[in-house]
């Protein structure tokens, strides 16, 4: 089962999210390398050798054009990053007008119920965590809630999680884009057995999904 190695995006939304990681990771690393370089350069270039103190170095303490520049340039960078991130989030959180499958997900200490609207309902046990079966390429609406404390629905290969808060149901869409079985888990600390509150997601073809659905229909 995938989910304990480097994540590989398995939904349409995850591809958008992966690009955000790539952009921010690259930009962040570039900034870090430049600033680390400046710090280490100053330390080693102007390190005092030996015990003698010598004359005082030049006592300058400001430089207005420089200070304006290092305020303005980072400001422009973060504004650009914000515009990008704003669009990416809108893409990921867009809800389809008519989803193909709707699943009511309920989180509770320490397990999950996956109730497909129109059946079936999947109920796991502690020894045998439940599996969420999803059709490839279709739009799946997850309606998430909790019946006791805060939990969070997290599938690392979807690069996405959403909190399950009692009294506050929320919805999001998933468009599975890759066949396979993926690990899911609770991400919000929820008490004694939080660490073991796992589930799995199996993405199958549309026809397999319909076959599975009718076989499990009661």
């Amino acid at each position: 089962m995938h989910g304990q190695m480097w994540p590989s995006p398995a939904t349409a939304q995850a591809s958008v999210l992966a690009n955000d990681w790539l952009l921010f990771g690259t930009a962040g690393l570039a900034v870090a390398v430049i600033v680390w370089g400046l710090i280490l350069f100053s330390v080693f270039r102007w390190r005092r050798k030996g015990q003698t103190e010598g004359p005082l170095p030049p006592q300058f303490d400001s430089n207005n054009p420089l200070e304006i520049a290092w305020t303005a340039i980072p400001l422009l960078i973060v504004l650009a990053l914000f515009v990008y991130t704003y669009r990416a989030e809108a893409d990921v959180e867009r809800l389809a007008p008519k989803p193909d499958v709707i699943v009511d997900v309920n989180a509770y200490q320490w397990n999950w119920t996956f109730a497909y609207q129109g059946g079936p309902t999947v109920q796991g046990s502690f020894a045998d965590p439940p599996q969420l079966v999803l059709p490839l390429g279709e739009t799946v609406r997850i309606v998430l809630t909790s019946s006791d404390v805060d939990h969070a629905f997290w599938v690392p290969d979807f690069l996405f999680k959403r909190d399950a808060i009692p009294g506050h149901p929320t919805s999001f869409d998933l468009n599975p884009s890759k066949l396979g079985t993926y690990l899911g888990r609770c991400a919000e600390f929820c008490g004694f057995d939080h660490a073991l509150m796992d589930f799995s997601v199996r993405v199958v073809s549309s026809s397999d999904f319909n076959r599975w659905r009718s076989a499990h229909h009661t």
Partner: protein
Amino acid sequence: MSPIAEQAVAPPGRSDLLGWLTSTDHKRIGTLYVITSLGFFLVAGALAVVMRTQLARPNSTLVSPHAFNQLFTLHGTAMIFLVVAPFAVGLANFLIPLQIGAPDMAFPRLNATSYWMFLFGGLTVFLGALTSEGAADSGWTAYAPLSEIKISTGLGQDMWIVGVFLVSVATILTAINFITTTFIYRAPGMTMWRIPIFAWEMVATSLLIFMAFPSLAAALLLLFVDRHLGGHAFDPSYGGNAVLWQHLFWFFGHPEVYVLILPYFGVVSEIIPVFSRKPIFGYTGLVIAAFAIAGLSMGVWAHHMFTTGAVDDPFFSFLSFMIAVPTGVKFFNWIGTMWRGSISLATPMLFCVGFLMNFLLGGVTGVMIASPPIDFHAEDSYFIVAHMHYVLGGGSLFAIFAALFFWWPKMFGVKLDERLGKLCFWLLFVGFNVTFFPMHLLGIEGMPRRVFTYPDVGSFPLLNSLATAGSYVMLAGVVAFAWNVVVSTRKRDPVGPDPWEANSLEWWTSSPPPEHNFDDLPPIRSARPVFDAHHPEIAKGGAG
């Protein structure tokens, strides 16, 4: 007669135990805060080492889930409320009156009250471990409804609420004292634009405390009412609202992050100029940046709630991004201070360089998770654990050690040993990065935080073992520090008023300072009066 001369004729305080217990002297209270927070640091650090030992291997059964949940609850609560914040409070207590040329804090008895409330609040949280169901185990964030009495039935949770409440009230009282002292008690010549950066950062910190901590205190009271007096503020089954807890908590909790870092921005801003033998670069910019950070940090609390689906993510994301700008200004100012300087890598400066290197990574990952699409994956994973420790461990903790090595001679009259100090630095620096860098990768690979165990798959075992090994190296660094304290105290090698050739007024008086602080003061004509007095040929201005 000036207030300083008046103090000079006051009878000396008692130096025995009773003298310390009843003291209202800001230096003694400051020292008590520092020592107490270091005591809590040793305990909270030991808890972390136990957690890392449990997590060294997959499916380990060294500690039970219940015990593990108490361990991380106490570790987080202690590090945040009882170590990083009160160490800054202790340092500020000791330093602010000295730095602005005052004889004491504005409200000395209120000051003593704050310390004792903090101490007993902290002890109350820990004493919960002696109750039948153990200490609180719902995390330092105590999310309701998990912390409600239906689920967290133990007395430990109540003791946590009471203890943290006491600490938060103590912190609010202290903030009032810092603001008043800095504004009212400055010596003649100490204008606002000559106040040392550390004191400025404490003013910004105190304003944040003043705005943020009442929200925490209110949330704790509501939770207590829910648990024992039939309230249902956070219980959705009776019309309460679980999201409300997160709002009240993070309205405190995010400014709190800056309460935990702004004082340490002040610490490195004091130390870097001394060991570069230059004035601080961009004094005005640093002060404005401190208040910009403080102001913005009041409007970013819900970036802890991006994954709730209950907040306007872009608004909080935008303000969180903006904090990168004034923080960047500070970085460039510190580099500008070192630029073309004459840099000595004595232990306090080494820790400052370590602070810059570590905190930078915490800042970069901070900008990443300010982007909701990234946070959707990172939130509540080990990536957050890594980020937050790079800020508060690699940042604040390294500045704590910088401050200890720098101001130790002023507090106790003896220098700490340099060779042991450098050993301590390298053990902590290497240990820290080996512990926390792998956690970024663990988070991306899907390891949630606050788990007592994990399965034997992928690179989980390797990265976790690495993190555990790093934590033992850090432990060795802390032992090296403790050994240094013993050695240096035994050697009894007294230092003069100004062992580092420093800038601000605390270095004018003897080490340690007399009870009344100053016998006389140099003229204060710039932000570094002691430097001016020693270098009249460079000193700025004449009568100005």
